[in-house]
């Protein structure tokens, strides 16, 4: 994690207390991928993601990384930020994707899958 990422994560962590419910740890661990691919495939994706990105192989690190990936507007308490679904769509549009277990996934949902593999599996 470089300095900028560290500051982002730190700033995001400071806002965790005021997060919308959709962004709490357990809500994020239920990615929209679940009804598409099923729990077993999502769990496998999550495990593989943690192997590929060992720096995020902890629930708090994953949580922080997802929060840090939100646009600036989401970090301002009085502005309504994007939903997690909108973040996923924006990832795809912006090319923030990765191939995990062969699946072309948004980075956000890959991290969500990793959380799922830790919390729900």
């Amino acid at each position, binding site marked *: 994690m470089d300095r900028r990422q560290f500051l982002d994560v730190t700033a995001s962590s400071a806002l965790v207390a005021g997060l919308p419910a959709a962004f709490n740890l357990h809500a994020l661990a239920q990615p*929209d*991928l679940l*009804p*598409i*691919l099923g729990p077993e*495939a999502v769990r496998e994706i999550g495990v593989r993601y943690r192997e590929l990105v060992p720096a995020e192989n902890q629930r708090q690190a994953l949580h922080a990384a997802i929060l840090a990936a939100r646009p600036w507007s989401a970090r301002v308490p009085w502005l309504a930020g994007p939903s997690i679904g909108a973040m*996923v*769509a924006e990832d*795809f*549009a912006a*090319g923030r*994707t990765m*191939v995990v*277990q*062969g*699946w*072309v*996934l*948004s980075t956000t949902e890959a991290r969500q899958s990793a959380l799922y593999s830790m919390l729900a599996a």
Partner: protein
Amino acid sequence: MHIDARTLPNGSVLEADLCIVGAGAAGISMALEWIGSPRTVLLLEGGGLEYEPAMQDLYRGESVGLPYYPLQAARLHYFGGTTGHWAGFCSTLDPIDFDKRDWVPHSGWPLRREELDPFYARAQPLLELGPYEYAAGDWQRRDPTLVPLPLDPRVMWTKMWQFSPPTRFGTRYRDAVIGARNVHLYTHANVCELEANESLGAIEGLRVRTLDGKEHRARARYYVLACCSIQNARLLLASNRRTPTGLGNAHDLVGRFFMEHLEIPSGHLALAPSHAVNTKLYAFEFGQTKARGELALSAAVQSNQRVLNGTVSLEPGAPDEEAQSTFQWGTPERLKTMRERKALGKAAPPPAKSPLFFHLMTRQEQAPNPDSRVMLSTERDALDVPRAKLAWRLTELDRRSFRVFYEVMGRELGRSGVGRVQLLDWVSRDDGTWPSTLSGGWHHMGTTRMHDNPRFGVVDATCRVHGLDNLYVAGASVYPTGGAANPTLTLVALSLRLSDHLKRTLA
């Protein structure tokens, strides 16, 4: 008129204004155009009216490149040609297919797509297709339930196919050809050599042999080779009595640039159930479906990503099923069942519900490659003609294009909320290897490619062989690039265009 060449006295001379060698989709399409004209036409078919093993054996050959189908099974050698076993898939080439693309070496046609449009329209009824409409919107207007996926047209689009019954030219047009007074069909008339004049500027005649040992000669003002991509090249190369490299081969191009369509299972699509996407437009039932869509990258994305053209079809399946290539899928047992159901007028039972999981089957053009080629074997066939030797070879661009296609498609289907795409292992790997499921579509193209400059092409834009005043080539062998569309519609369109050209020339 129909004559079996075996019944002619040995040494017969057959004469006409125009001689067409080969009675497949290209040759028959041309011959039909001349019925009732004041010109006489010789239509020479090496096989008979029906399949005969001895005739088919003349197409046996060697394969020394990537694994390929047995050459004697990859085309048919009797009246009607390979339409005797084609599946009827038809679509047009895209405008980008005609462009010179700086990222695709040797690409570019000496004609534009717009120049082919009127001939595509004329080819439609010959192949018993619907109207000349290949936009998804055209089909949606006919049937509002045929809805294209909500894709960004700057990234991906739905390319349409139409399906011929499929038209078996040998049975569909047999009576018309045989009944024509000015078209003289000779069967069992195998052209073994094209004889050039002394200056190598024109063809003087053709040596025609039968399996029972007779040899005849065919003479015409103009000649058209309409055999198939392998056989067209083989005949030119084997016509080496006056020039050791064969005819039309001054620049060592004949036989080179052999192309196929790479048809390989490459991935999966899992639909997002919440979006309830309608995929009816993409469904296919052999013998029932009139038109369907496949997914393609936009021309802009092909250019930006520097990849080849291709399309992906959606085949409903289950996640735990192993994907199969077209020919793995078509087992003798399954084909038998399909034929039985078709004979009884039955379609396959409709799916119980809209599928949510699909195998993705790619059909991708092959980059033109001079090292992918047809040569002559040292072995000779029963008529003493050297057999064909095929070296099918692919390039890094062919391989890379698959991965790029699937990654772009994965992002676009994710962005649009349609679902998620999975790349099969071989697509993900960057090791340059091909999977065991690598197969071609039995589409042979490119061995007598078209280019205005004889240094880069065997035929010119009219399909005339460079340097030979009266020899033309019809069929997919003239394609400089193959696009993603199955070749038959385009080769019939080009044959009609050539026919018009020859009518003007003979007038």
